[in-house]
């Protein structure tokens, strides 16, 4: 398979997957049970994403490192009602600092 063809196929599938969700008939999604589940879907997906971004390394192995400290600092900042940018900057700074000092 040529590289361009592989790129075109992968792009088509990626866009098809995105579009598919928008083509589900509205009346199917309007049912109250389904509506509650679809509203909860981003919560589940983003929580799963945060968890894998925080706790897993190469090959999906469980890893505890500077990322956990960074997210913990972010949670403390959120509990103290810090603004969004401060939360994000504190997370980055925590990880960068721990790594530069060789602690994690």
């Amino acid at each position, binding site marked *: 398979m040529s590289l361009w063809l592989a790129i075109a196929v992968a792009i088509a599938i990626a866009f098809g997957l995105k579009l598919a969700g928008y083509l589900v008939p509205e009346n199917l999604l309007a049912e109250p049970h389904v509506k509650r589940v679809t*509203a909860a879907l981003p*919560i589940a997906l983003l929580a799963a994403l945060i968890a894998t971004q925080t706790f897993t390394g190469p090959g999906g192995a469980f890893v505890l490192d500077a990322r956990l400290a960074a997210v913990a600092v972010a949670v403390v900042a959120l509990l103290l009602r810090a603004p969004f940018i401060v939360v994000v900057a504190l997370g*980055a700074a925590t990880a960068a600092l721990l790594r530069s000092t060789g602690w994690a």
Partner: protein
Amino acid sequence: MSQRVGGGQVEELDPARRRLVVREALSVGVATGAYGLSFGALAVAAGLDVWQTMALSLLMFTGGSQFAFVGIIANGSGAAPAAIAASSLLGVRNGLYALELTQLLGVHGVRRVAAAHLTIDESTAVAVAQDDVRASRLGFWLTGAAVFTFWNLMTLLGALLGNALGDPRTYGLDAAAAAAFTALLWPRLRSRDAVAIAVVAGVVAVVLAPALPPGVPVVVAAFASFIAWRERREDA
């Protein structure tokens, strides 16, 4: 769980609220965009030319899938089916985001195609973090546009000049992404159901991560959303 105000209002979003959404969208756009530099450099190192690299960032436009695709295609053209499979598995979650976004955004025609293209983790996270449908819509489009702009500019720079910044982890950019998603999910964790869904999904994804291909654990974890199937009084 849904405290959003119904659609169709004519009043403008108040300026203070608007500024908050703009700030969220721009900071997510810049932080995510910075990763485009690594992607561009990595894609060229994997044997793609600048046009092929830009085709991925402009048209595939979903970072996790793009990194997986070039990481595998680096092994040669025989790896193409595996590269397509990996990028596609990582793209499944965008389709699941779309199930909620299609109701939230209320888009049709060309705008629906544009919305589909911009449907990624970041735009969805900013949209669902808002408690007002106008703020959600603004957040979705602004974040999608900001990430699209920065991601593609930085991809081009990375492809042409190489990764001048070095490993983004040195600057804690990976942790910045996790912190940003946490901050965006935070306002949604008010009900017991939402907390249960987040915890179950997080644990399932981490436990399955070593056993399943990248992208699959997160999609399996999405089944935690069925916790919301039955109505709870606190959500009423």
